[in-house]
């Protein structure tokens, strides 16, 4: 539905976006994820027509939309701090886009009420309220209702939960996901919070300093990070240099300071024999060794532990000096610890 082709943008010598390419399909939720300053918000503003790119094209169903001014694009946009009009009531805010479409007063009233109901607000109770009487969560709902009211072809959300506290953010993330899917909307969602992106996205476009670092489903990104940056950004900090020794029985053998580690070969293309690779060990890879198939057995000294509820986050030091951060689900935690690394919780890149 939406295609971005070779988008680039610079502000006074600083390159904000470099050759960004991706597509958004009809009915898909795509998250633009990345650290602050990576250019994701700028990209969103370019798609909305609030800024113009230096190079490349934005196409909608194949047609370039760059010459179309913002107000004729028919997109919805939810701003970071909501940008609710402070001099208008809740109902007037929601009605704004409908008025711009010259709907009749009667129609506007009905749509405002139904939109507010959609986001869980009672129009009779909230409609006449001033914006500064609303809580953070209520503002978020009003902003959502406002951007949905004109029935946009594409909904863009720029860190819409960024200013809310954590508990509320988690609740609203779920609600937002449910609503977007129920309405069958196509959405482009900008965030720097990977948990939010994982919860919402059909696909994630992970960005780093103006470039696309990796595109994929949340699971693909997590299980198969393509670069050190992606692994680090997703909180996968156990990255160890190694060399491919061989492929056999559905495993790839990688030689590392920890010894030879076997990784499940459930990805393509498999690295060539002898290739220098990075081994990514996800925290959940650690488990007690079962006697049946003892694989990747390691012994290490536990240097730190912190309680995380269902698991303990532990830090261990291998005899080689290599540190690993792991999640330990069993109650018993002997020290030194003998444990195994699950081959399906590791990847190479």
């Amino acid at each position, binding site marked *: 539905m939406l295609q971005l082709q070779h988008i680039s943008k610079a502000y006074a010598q600083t390159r904000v976006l470099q050759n960004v390419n991706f597509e958004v399909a009809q009915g898909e939720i795509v998250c633009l994820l990345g650290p602050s300053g990576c250019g994701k918000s700028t990209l969103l503003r370019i798609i909305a027509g609030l800024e113009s790119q230096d190079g490349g094209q934005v196409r909608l169903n194949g047609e370039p939309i760059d010459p179309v001014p*913002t107000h004729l694009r028919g997109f919805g946009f939810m701003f970071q701090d909501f*940008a609710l009009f402070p001099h208008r009531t809740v109902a007037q805010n929601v009605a704004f886009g409908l008025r711009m*479409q010259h709907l009749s007063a009667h129609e506007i009233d009905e749509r405002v009420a139904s939109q507010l109901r959609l986001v869980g607000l009672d129009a009779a109770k909230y409609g006449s309220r001033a914006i500064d009487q609303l809580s953070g969560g209520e503002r978020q709902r009003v902003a959502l209702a406002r951007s949905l009211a004109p029935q946009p072809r594409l909904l863009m959300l720029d860190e819409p939960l960024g200013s809310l506290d954590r508990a509320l953010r988690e609740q609203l993330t779920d609600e937002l996901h449910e609503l977007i899917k129920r309405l069958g909307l196509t959405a482009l969602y900008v965030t720097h919070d990977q948990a939010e992106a994982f919860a919402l996205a059909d696909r994630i476009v992970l960005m780093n300093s103006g470039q696309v670092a990796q595109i994929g489903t949340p699971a693909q990104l997590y299980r198969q990070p393509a670069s050190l940056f992606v692994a680090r950004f997703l909180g996968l900090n156990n990255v160890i240099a190694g060399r491919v020794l061989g492929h056999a029985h559905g495993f790839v053998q990688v030689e590392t300071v920890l010894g030879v580690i076997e990784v499940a070969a459930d990805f393509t293309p498999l690295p060539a024999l002898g290739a220098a690779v990075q081994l990514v060990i996800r925290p959940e890879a650690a488990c007690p060794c079962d006697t049946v198939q003892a694989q990747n057995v390691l012994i290490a000294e536990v240097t730190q532990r912190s309680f995380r509820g269902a698991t303990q986050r532990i830090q261990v030091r291998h005899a080689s000096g290599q540190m690993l951060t792991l999640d330990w689900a069993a109650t018993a935690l002997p020290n030194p610890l003998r444990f195994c690394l699950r081959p399906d919780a590791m990847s190479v890149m």
Partner: protein
Amino acid sequence: MTERVFRILPLVFLGLFYFYPLFFIFRISFAPKGTLDLAPFAELAADEYYWRVLWFSAWQAALSTLLTLLTALPAAFLFARYQFRGKTLLRAIANVPFVLPVLVVASAFSALFGPQVQGLGLMLLAHVFYNYTLVLRIVGNFWANLDPQLTQAASVLGASRIQAQREITLPLLLPAIGSAALLIFIFCFGAFGTVLLLAGPRYATLEVEIYTQATSFLNLPVAGALSLLQIVASLLLTLLYNRLQTRTAALNLRAAARVQRPLHGQMWLLWLLAIGVIAALIVLPLLALLIRAVIAAHTLGWGAYAALFSQASSALFGVAPIMAVQNSLVYGLMTVVVALGVGLPAAYWLSDKSASAIRTALLDAVFMLPLGTSAVTLGFGYIVAFSGPPLEWRASAWLVPFAHALLALPFVVRTLTPTLRSIDPRLREAARVMGATPAQAWREIDWPILARGIAVAATFAFAISVGEFGATLLLGQPDYPTMPVVIYRFLGQPGLRNYALALAMSCVLMLVMVAAFVIIERLRITDSEF
């Protein structure tokens, strides 16, 4: 105990130098002979002339306001939303008139258009000259803080550029525009010097009429009644202004990250317009003043300026005119001491966060009263209040700086209060917890933050005193003329020689004020109201 004395001080000051004279104005207009007698008001109401004066005061103020808004709003937009070279300098130049005394402005415009030229247009021009920067500051600052995402949100929702401006920007700016307009209206409604010197004898505002009635006709009851009219009018306007101000502050939800873009496209036209207006309106008259003073000296010979130093040169004063510089400076310093002595406790009182909001609002309104009070009314009040027992201070030279301090009080308070409010009380508490005595806590925490505010407030007080004309003229003792009074006397005398002396003195006054202004601009920390 000492704290209570400290707090009572501003109220005592206001009581003695504001309410006490006010009471005398009431007495002289309601009971000129000791018993209630509404004759002065009957005289006012019956005479069509006074209605015309009132009407003129109002419509010239309205027209001045409108002209100022039209001239300054495009520049306010430019300054708020765009970044360009020379912006700081341009803004500084635009701010200069705010501290320039009316006598300097009158001299400058007469230097530009010729000494004999007078008229309504000249006065209106002077009013635009004065208030241009108010629009730039009040509207411009508000505009710069307006979240640009709001118009962008409107745009995404389908509003064209013009619709977004009409639906979002304009309604949001309206309180700020209203507040600026009202302040300009208040200042112009109380116009005195500009009318007297630039509009000419055919025109009289309430202020000019009070002066004429009190000094030329010695009709004190009518002057008193007119003063009351002026006080009530400016009081109502000030109240309205304060309400608008609160609303403006409430609407300005947060100072969003200021987004200022480089100039592009047609915006260069706006830039050109702003530069043109500032150059023609502000720079040109002031340059003309300097050039005329030099030309006059060239014609007469520089020796003519020796007259400034000679007592014999002028029958107008009992002293050499140059003594006026010293008088002005001494008065200015006295004003600083008094205004800070009263204003600092007042500001502490207003910034007390534990006090009830109603009391703070009430006190704020009380301390703002002098802002709406005109200098002439004040001077007249002092004449009627302090001419006889129990407080016979009329002949004391120090009465003038006290009047100046009263006029400066709102500026001092409004400069210091935001600074004090910005000091997090937890900082003081932290200092106390770590073992500082209250005095040490004040020295270590308050003082470093407050020092700049005090310097700005002091400079304001100094500038107001040195430039003040109306009250000084009414109260002034012949032995202690100030610079504005000397310029006024010289301007009122025929002959190139007197004119040249007026110009020379104006130049000196202008330089003093510009120096004061540079200090204010250098030290200014927050975008305070003034």
